[in-house]
């Protein structure tokens, strides 16, 4: 195919999409160089899935332009479909068919011959450690195996650009790590990858570049390190059982914090960014709290989460918004909102 391979794997300019009066995308720009991994980070309803659906030709944008593998997703949709793979939030496999049948079916629909689809299915079953389960109906698979099969199905056509929409949402920690290994090896193999996630650690592990999306806009972009430095590095967090001493606790840790201090009146959870000071900050905090006579529980350092990034970037917590326009707030979001106010 005489095709320009020098451009980026994905190029998005000024993309907008509304559903009625819900503005899912309000003008986003993205560039994903070939062979790199972009992590798209954002809470539910930020517009991640809408962006993926437009880039995979499932949805028409209102305005803007998007090229995938050098082709326009609107005017050259058929060509785009030949160079992409999509693995969505749920396992889009036929549960009554076996793992092997699922992959062979996709192969046939990619217009591989019968023997070709059989060979391709066998390769992928091997690669995804599903050989032993290949003859069993997919409904007998564990959640992690179903996701692996789904990911394998998205690779049948040897895509140049792969879209993974929240590939580990709902998986147990072990399956999640296994999925990370697979995604890492795909990236090493040179596939251009766009990965959406709600988890900062996932983007941190897998992505070369991260963009943070909120309410249909890109609110930050950079490497994981750059984003984390904006949060103020690690987070020191503890609970004060006696709510009356909450403000004393916040005052006591003034000396350790580099970032803003947050206290949740409902749960008694206090958190503060401590930059790169790590265990020194921990020791200082213990001393200060002890000197102030404040009792605490569960004092610990943790890596910054998506919530922390959102607090730092937007001043508000990760807010959940459904695509169909119904607004709802997750438990986490609610908690952090109280934090932000105090």
């Amino acid at each position, binding site marked *: 195919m005489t095709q320009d391979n020098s451009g980026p794997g994905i190029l998005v300019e000024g993309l907008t999409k509304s559903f009625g009066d819900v503005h899912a995308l309000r003008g986003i720009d993205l560039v994903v160089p070939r062979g790199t991994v972009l992590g798209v980070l954002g809470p539910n309803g930020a517009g991640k899935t809408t962006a993926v659906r437009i880039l995979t030709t499932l949805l028409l944008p209102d305005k803007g332009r998007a*090229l995938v593998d050098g082709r326009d997703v609107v005017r050259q949709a058929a060509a785009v479909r030949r160079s992409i793979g999509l693995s*969505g939030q749920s396992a889009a496999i036929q549960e009554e*068919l076996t793992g092997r*049948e699922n992959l062979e079916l996709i192969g046939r629909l990619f217009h591989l011959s019968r023997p070709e689809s059989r060979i391709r299915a066998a390769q992928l079953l091997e690669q995804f450690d599903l050989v032993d389960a290949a003859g069993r109906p997919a409904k007998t698979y564990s959640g992690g195996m179903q996701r692996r099969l789904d990911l394998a199905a998205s690779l049948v056509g040897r895509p140049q650009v792969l879209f993974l929409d929240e590939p580990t949402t709902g998986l147990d920690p072990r399956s999640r790590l296994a999925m990370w290994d697979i995604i890492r090896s795909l990236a090493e193999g040179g596939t251009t990858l766009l990965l959406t996630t709600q988890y900062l650690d996932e983007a941190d592990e897998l992505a070369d570049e991260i963009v943070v999306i909120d309410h249909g806009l890109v609110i930050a972009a950079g490497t994981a390190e750059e984003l984390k430095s904006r949060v103020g590095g690690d987070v020191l967090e503890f609970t004060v059982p006696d709510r009356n001493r909450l403000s004393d606790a916040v005052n006591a840790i003034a000396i350790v914090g580099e970032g803003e201090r947050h206290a949740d009146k409902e749960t008694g959870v206090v958190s503060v960014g401590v930059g790169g000071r790590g265990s020194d900050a921990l020791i200082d905090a213990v001393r200060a709290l002890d000197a102030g006579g404040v009792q605490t529980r569960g004092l610990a350092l943790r890596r910054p989460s998506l919530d922390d990034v959102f607090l730092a970037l937007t001043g508000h917590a990760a807010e959940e918004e459904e695509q169909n326009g119904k607004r709802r707030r997750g438990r986490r979001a609610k908690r952090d909102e109280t934090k932000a106010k105090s």
Partner: protein
Amino acid sequence: MTTATAPTISLPDEPSLLARFRWAVSDTMVIARRNLIVWIRVPAYLVFTVIQPVLFVVMFRYVFGGAIKIPGSISYVDFLMPGIIGQTAAFATFATAIALAQELKKGVIDRLRSMPMARSAVLTGRLVADTGRMLVTILIVVAVGYGVGFRFHNGAVPAILMVVLATVFGLAICLIAAFTGLAIGDEESVQAFGLIWLFPLTFLSSAFVPIQSMPGWLQAFANNQPVTYVINTMRALAIGGPIEADLWKSIAWLAGIFIVFGPLAVRAYKRAS
């Protein structure tokens, strides 16, 4: 990296019409085959589509049959069987709507739409498989009918035509079901909605009882709705009798359903999300 790439790749983007048609047929058959495998492997589908009509035959023949009087010299089982066969074809479309709603919800349709296959194939493959499934079910019901005393009295060709008409009728209902399945997109709602329109349409018709036994206001509806025309035509083909008026009305109604719901189902598929 710009628009300059467009001309160089426009050639492979536009395969010839013939090639596209060939792929559409091939993709349709691949999807149809998958759907038939699923049908055979899910016991609930098999029960719903095969056992249920057989139960209807036995129930109406032996439970209600004795209480239902048919004018003239026709036996009830001969009256009943074309009705049951028509109802079987109509009810078989429940599975169509439910399966499409499930695929939509699970993301299977998204996956297929993001692939370089013929976009029509998910729908046409579904229709081909469901028509095949319907035909098998109809033949089973005919066989059961023979077991409980039903006979074709009008010769072999009309008997075959009756089965063909029942299948075409089922296909028409299938299109409506496909549209509702894709438009509603939620399994439970689809099922409930199917009951709301399919039950009245099949039971308030000439399928199970002579319309003359209904109250007047109901007769007005039952006499003028498509299921009655189709069942009357099937009955005339199976056991003889006047056919012309019902046949043309059946054809007109079925053509109308294809013309209206074909495009609607395609549109619902394209917009499905």
